């Protein structure tokens, strides 16, 4: 039991940034995102025996997405200027990435956050989103194109 906790603590420490970044992008809020990430890790801890191997990060990110959906049913996440992932000393580039992500629709943002941000495969993202693989691929394509257009200035700089 103690060994389990220690190992799990190491996994949390290693992947907390990825899961928090994903959750912040989904909720467009630092505090709400961190709450989702924390809930996701606790769910992962309780259901650790159901983890069948593979990418731990992908598994927890999928749980975080489910936590986000479950939490969203009961409330509306409100992005504020003071509490978004790009606030607090962030560079202009990161601030614009945040704004560009906020301009995507929910499915595009989730697919981009899962695939490009958290590094899930299209198939893993489709499983997490409970959506057809083809839909996820097209959300990623459309979202990527919109991000590329919005962020073109930074590539030129």
């Amino acid at each position, binding site marked *: 039991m103690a060994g389990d*906790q220690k190992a799990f603590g190491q996994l949390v420490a290693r992947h*907390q940034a990825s899961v928090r970044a994903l959750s912040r992008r989904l909720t467009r809020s630092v505090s709400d995102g961190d709450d989702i990430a924390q809930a996701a890790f606790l769910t992962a*801890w309780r259901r650790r025996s159901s983890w069948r191997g593979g990418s731990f990060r992908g598994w927890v990110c999928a749980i975080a997405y489910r936590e986000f959906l479950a939490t969203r049913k009961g409330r509306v996440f409100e992005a504020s200027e003071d509490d978004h992932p790009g606030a607090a000393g962030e560079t202009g580039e*990161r601030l614009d990435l945040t704004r560009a992500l906020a301009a995507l629709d929910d499915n595009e943002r989730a697919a981009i956050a899962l695939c490009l941000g958290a590094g899930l495969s299209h198939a893993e993202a489709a499983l997490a989103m409970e959506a057809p693989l083809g839909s996820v691929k097209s959300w990623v394509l459309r979202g990527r194109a919109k991000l590329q257009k919005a*962020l073109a200035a930074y590539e030129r700089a």
Partner: protein
Amino acid sequence: MSNQPPEWPPEGGEQPGDDGLARMFAAEEAAIRDDGFTARVMEQAHNSFGVRRVVVYGAGMAGFGAAVAGIFDMAPYLPAMTGWWGGMSNALQAGAAPDPSNPAFLIVAALAAGAAFFTLALVAQER
């Protein structure tokens, strides 16, 4: 006539490719410090397990203890559960008609209760 999509080639000609976007996402992720997050998660994980363990195993031991007490005819020392037990006993007798005074029946009931609590404990740990 070109068969390219209307917006192709994209305006400006220079846009961040996958590498550019990946770099931006990685930079955003790298800026997130642990700042006690892991400690908070592990503290909650530890606490949630402790409460669950006490509730589940406490209930299991109480049930098992009641069953054992029944086997050894210690029922008079337990809290009165006559109404509850009587109703359940009548329902059982209406079905398979077991004899509650038969030690074999009590042993089977105790084993069934133990199995049920063990299953409950396993299920609760999975949730």
